[in-house]
């Protein structure tokens, strides 16, 4: 009982907030175009109170979580959908009700986190659902705050406007992705990572080179390499070649340092074993040391996937043909079309997450032997 009452303080506060909202009605200011109908208000209040009392009175975690999930999101959705036409007219009760529903969602996440499901599928689903609820509420609060307070569009557009902009400007976004990601980033990423890898193998073969390169590589990783972008634009012109060059330089050093570190991880026992098999340098490298270095190499690939995007986008600030994500961001900022900027950022985030996820998937299948992937 104590654990339950401890986890449902959010529900108690939520009830208080709902009552406070009812005391301070109406929800929208007097001049609002679409005042909230009494029916909708009653539905919202009933939803919120149902969720809150379910959390306070019911004992079963899964049931409480399910009820909270439905009521919190339905309440928030009703509140937001009634906001259209009333931008900037919302009064305190609106935000109190949003906050009440947000607390219910928090209580829901608390209940979900405490669940110990039997089957693996449900555990995986929970692991995805909990952050998804969090992300959804970031968007809901963002939407409610920008439209409720009537925040100027240039300052922070609501997520719904950004979504509409993404849908409407698909061709432009696709052209930018094609220019920045498929030309500059991909080429630079492959060349930079591959050459870093090759030099690492060379440094591994020649010990003198390793001792010389490793401190320099470590030092360079701390430097603001991104600053070479204007120089590369000057050398290679405005098209994607200069961006690819920046990406090559940025991805080279993480790969070099990580591969050299990874090649040192194979233990003495294993190396001695390879020696008793009379295997030569290349056999040891291919069959023992490179597989052992794979976690490090994949770590570098992950770091590089983000660095590559950053490098290409920032390099485009210094001059591009009239297409590309960095170009679009810098020009649309100048024209105060911030929804387009947010759309580009969303696309960049999506691309970054997808490439990261792809690398992580490949990593799981390559380093299946590693303790962190066995269960």
């Amino acid at each position, binding site marked *: 009982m104590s654990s339950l009452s401890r986890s449902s303080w959010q529900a108690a506060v939520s009830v208080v907030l709902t009552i406070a909202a009812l005391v301070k009605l109406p929800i929208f200011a007097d001049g609002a175009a679409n005042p909230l109908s009494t029916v909708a208000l009653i539905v919202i209040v009933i939803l919120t109170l149902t969720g809150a009392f379910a959390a306070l009175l019911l004992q079963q975690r899964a049931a409480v979580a399910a009820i909270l999930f439905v009521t919190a999101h339905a309440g928030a959705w009703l509140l937001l959908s009634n906001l259209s036409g009333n931008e900037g007219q919302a009064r305190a009760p609106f935000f109190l009700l949003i906050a009440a529903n947000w607390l219910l969602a*928090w209580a829901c*996440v*608390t209940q*979900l*986190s*405490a669940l110990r499901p039997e089957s693996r599928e449900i555990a995986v689903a929970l*692991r995805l659902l*909990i*952050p998804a*609820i*969090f*992300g959804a509420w970031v968007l809901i609060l963002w939407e409610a705050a920008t439209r409720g307070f009537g925040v100027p569009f*240039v*300052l*922070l557009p609501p997520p719904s406007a950004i979504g509409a902009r993404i849908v409407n400007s698909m061709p432009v976004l696709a052209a930018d992705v094609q220019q920045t990601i498929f030309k500059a980033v991909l080429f630079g990423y492959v060349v930079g990572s591959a050459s870093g890898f090759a030099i690492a193998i060379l440094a591994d073969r020649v010990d*003198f*080179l390793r*001792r*010389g*390169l490793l*401190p*320099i590589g470590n*030092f360079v*990783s*701390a*430097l*603001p390499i*991104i*600053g070479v972008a*204007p*120089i590369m*634009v*000057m*050398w290679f012109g405005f098209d994607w070649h200069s961006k690819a060059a920046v990406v090559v330089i940025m991805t080279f050093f993480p790969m070099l340092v990580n591969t050299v570190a990874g090649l040192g991880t194979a233990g003495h026992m294993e190396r001695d074993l390879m020696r008793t098999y009379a295997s030569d340098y290349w056999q040891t490298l291919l069959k023992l040391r490179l597989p052992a270095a794979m976690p490090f190499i994949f770590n570098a690939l992950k770091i590089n*996937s*983000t660095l590559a*995007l*950053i490098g290409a*986008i*920032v390099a485009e*600030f*210094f*001059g591009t043909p009239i297409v590309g*994500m960095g170009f679009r*961001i*810098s020009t649309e*900022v*100048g024209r*105060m079309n*911030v929804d387009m*900027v*947010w759309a*580009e*950022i969303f696309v*960049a*985030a999506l691309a*970054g*997450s997808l*490439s*990261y996820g792809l690398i992580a998937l490949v990593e799981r299948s390559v380093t299946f032997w590693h303790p962190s992937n066995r269960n």
Partner: protein
Amino acid sequence: MLKSRILPVLTVVAAIVAVWYVAAVFMNAPVQRDMDKRAGITSTTWELVEKTMSQAKPTLPAPHQIASNFFENTFQRKITSKRSLVYHGWVTLSSTLLGFAFGTALGIVIAVGIVHLKSLERSLMPWIIASQTVPILAIAPMVIVVLGAINITGLIPKALISTYLSFFPVTVGMVKGLRSPEAMHLDLMRTYNSSVGQTFWKLRVPASVPYLFTSMKVAIAASLVGAIVGELPTGAVAGIGSKLLAGSYYSQTIDMWAALIAGSVLAALLVAGVDIASRITNRLMGGRPA
């Protein structure tokens, strides 16, 4: 020590400088031949080589040109002068440090929350990791222009970008650090009947200090990158980033390289500063030098 560590590094550095000189000659030669042709001069190969290393706006400046420019703009100008690299470095440094302070504080707060609240860990941690796959520097121009639109200019917008870049390493490092006490030590605290707060201050915090400093080294380097990029898009009047931008507008290649060197020196100094702070803290906490 000398032979096994310093000699290889020096050799590699010397090789880089040598390659640089050769590259400078080859990359500057076409322009120089063109200039000679227009002036109606025929120069011998050696004269050509000499001229390629003393152009005013070379494609690739020779190392000694960069070095003398850097020296001149760092030590021989008044530090209040607009051309002094110390002045620009200070502008960048101040927003770097402010952003780093914000970022470290934010990172520690988030880490403390994650360690103590299960629901926060499960809902926030995936997003913190995802936030790092986002090329956040892309957002820099917008942060600066938008905050400029509501009259927040100068230090704060740049520092915000640095904050975003530097909080992540600190969060991840601190979560690891605060969880680093072994089960045995945690059990010992429990046998002492210590509260959550006591366990936190007397066990978790001291255990996390080495992790904090390791992640602060990464964070301060990231913070500097954020400050420099934050100076790019607005045509900021001062700072290493604006120096780079101005150099690229007027093709002042030597100035650009010198600014780049200044940024690197700043990075090295900052990382070294964190390192020294970590050694001092370690000694004050009674750690023995390894």
